[in-house]
């Protein structure tokens, strides 16, 4: 199959282009800007005949315009990063509350202050409770594929929720990788035109976004049920995707887990480095494997339990921080395993904040520390990048 060199930003733009959105509101922010610039150039070149490319004056307005367009039944794409994603935060809840299937690529970058341009996952995970479905890609092929899948999942009548597709800034966003760009015909076969049943149109006046009284709990519960319905829809989507494109993704990505005693739990591009390190450690006889969290919302507890139930020790590697608490995904994983009779020991590693590189050496260090924990029976909370202060 023909391979093309594209950056993560371009891969997201390709996913959007192939999904034929009606509307793309945009605002620049590093390290996402290249994604919207690519779309802007395609628009100027007449390559996006079915799309109105718009430029807004803030990310808040980007998401607001996305809500406006999706509410009238348009298919919408946008992209953002970091501070921009935080500026959108208010409107993200409105998009999911109105059950609008917007798809957005997010490019993770650490949050200010102090300013960093490099990647960690606090921006993305800050949206954890926003009601969006959340995917985190490992490489550029997955970025493109997941954007296309995201529309199928978002627009399914059982779901009707917006979807965020995250990639790591710089490591993916600005790095060329050889990927397969599917043909428009194949994508059209996979992704039908959006046919919404709950939107504003002429001759059928409806009120969107009204205040409610005691029904609030019911609507919130519906948001939750819809997100949980997504489990089934995601699986079906993977089946159809595999049939057409020959690639398959899962709720979680399992790597060398079959006999693994030690398991590293990761997110995003760091997983590729960790997999390389694991292959080396395996050749040294260390029984280590990896679980990559691909779908963050809905939280795939079942898949995580199945993947980790036979492990002896688990290291949750968080490239993020909730100050005063710790790594954000650590408690989520621990809670998921809590009810097991024979649950593994779980240690927490806070790593790679502001893009601090996670080399294979560092991954090996984490693994040996986890092994120590298994021997001592004492889980740890470790700050991997700080030797002394």
């Amino acid at each position, binding site marked *: 199959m023909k391979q093309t060199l594209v950056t993560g930003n371009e891969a997201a733009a390709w996913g959007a282009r192939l999904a034929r959105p009606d509307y793309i509101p945009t605002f620049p922010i590093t390290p996402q800007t290249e994604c919207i610039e690519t779309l802007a150039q395609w628009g100027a070149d007449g390559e996006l005949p079915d799309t109105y490319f718009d430029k807004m004056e803030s990310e808040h307005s980007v998401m607001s315009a996305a809500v406006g367009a999706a509410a009238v039944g348009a298919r919408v794409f946008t992209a953002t990063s970091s501070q921009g994603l935080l500026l959108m935060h208010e409107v993200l809840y409105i998009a999911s509350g109105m059950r609008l299937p917007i798809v957005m690529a997010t490019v993770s970058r650490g949050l200010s202050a102090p300013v960093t341009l490099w990647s960690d996952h606090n921006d993305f995970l800050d949206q954890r409770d926003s009601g969006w479905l959340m995917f985190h890609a490992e490489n550029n092929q997955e970025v493109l594929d997941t954007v296309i899948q995201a529309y199928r999942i978002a627009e399914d009548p059982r779901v009707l929720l917006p979807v965020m597709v995250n990639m790591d800034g710089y490591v993916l966003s600005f790095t060329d990788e050889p990927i397969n760009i599917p043909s428009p015909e194949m994508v059209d076969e996979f992704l039908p035109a959006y046919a919404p049943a709950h939107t504003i149109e002429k001759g059928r006046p409806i*009120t969107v976004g009204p205040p409610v009284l005691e*029904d609030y709990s019911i609507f919130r519960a*519906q948001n939750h049920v819809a997100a949980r319905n997504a489990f089934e829809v995601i699986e079906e989507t993977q089946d159809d995707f595999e049939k057409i494109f020959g690639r398959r993704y899962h709720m979680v990505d399992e790597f060398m887990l079959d006999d693994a005693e030690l398991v590293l739990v990761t997110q995003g591009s760091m997983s590729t480095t960790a997999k390389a390190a694991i292959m080396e450690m395996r050749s040294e006889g260390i029984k280590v494997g990896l679980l990559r969290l691909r779908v963050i919302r809905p939280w795939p507890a079942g898949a995580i339990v199945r993947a980790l139930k036979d492990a002896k020790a688990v290291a949750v590697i968080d490239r993020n921080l909730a100050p005063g608490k710790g790594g954000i995904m650590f408690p989520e994983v621990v809670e998921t395993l809590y009810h097991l009779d024979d649950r593994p020991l779980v240690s927490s590693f806070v790593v790679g904040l502001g893009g601090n590189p996670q080399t294979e050496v560092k991954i090996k260090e984490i693994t040996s520390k986890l092994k120590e924990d298994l021997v001592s029976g004492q889980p740890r909370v470790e700050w991997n990048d700080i030797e002394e202060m």
Partner: protein
Amino acid sequence: MREEELPYKGIEGIPIIKEPGSASKVNRGSWRLVRPVYDREKCTKCKICFTYCPDAAINWTPEGPEINLKSCKGCMICVEECPTDAMTEEKEGT
């Protein structure tokens, strides 16, 4: 209700109002302390009362204004603005 019993209500579970003008069935007449009283004899059908009613509680008919007391909150703009005293006010409960 247990979580697994929560039903999925589809489009019905989305917070939109699908019935235009459904508020017209809500009774706001209970807000009123005074009510407008219409005198057809004095009316010149100038449409001032109809135009200025903030709650669209005055319907316009070929015979002139028709007050909908379910929607009238008793602001008395119609009484104040009527140039011919065709609208007067009366205390509620009298």
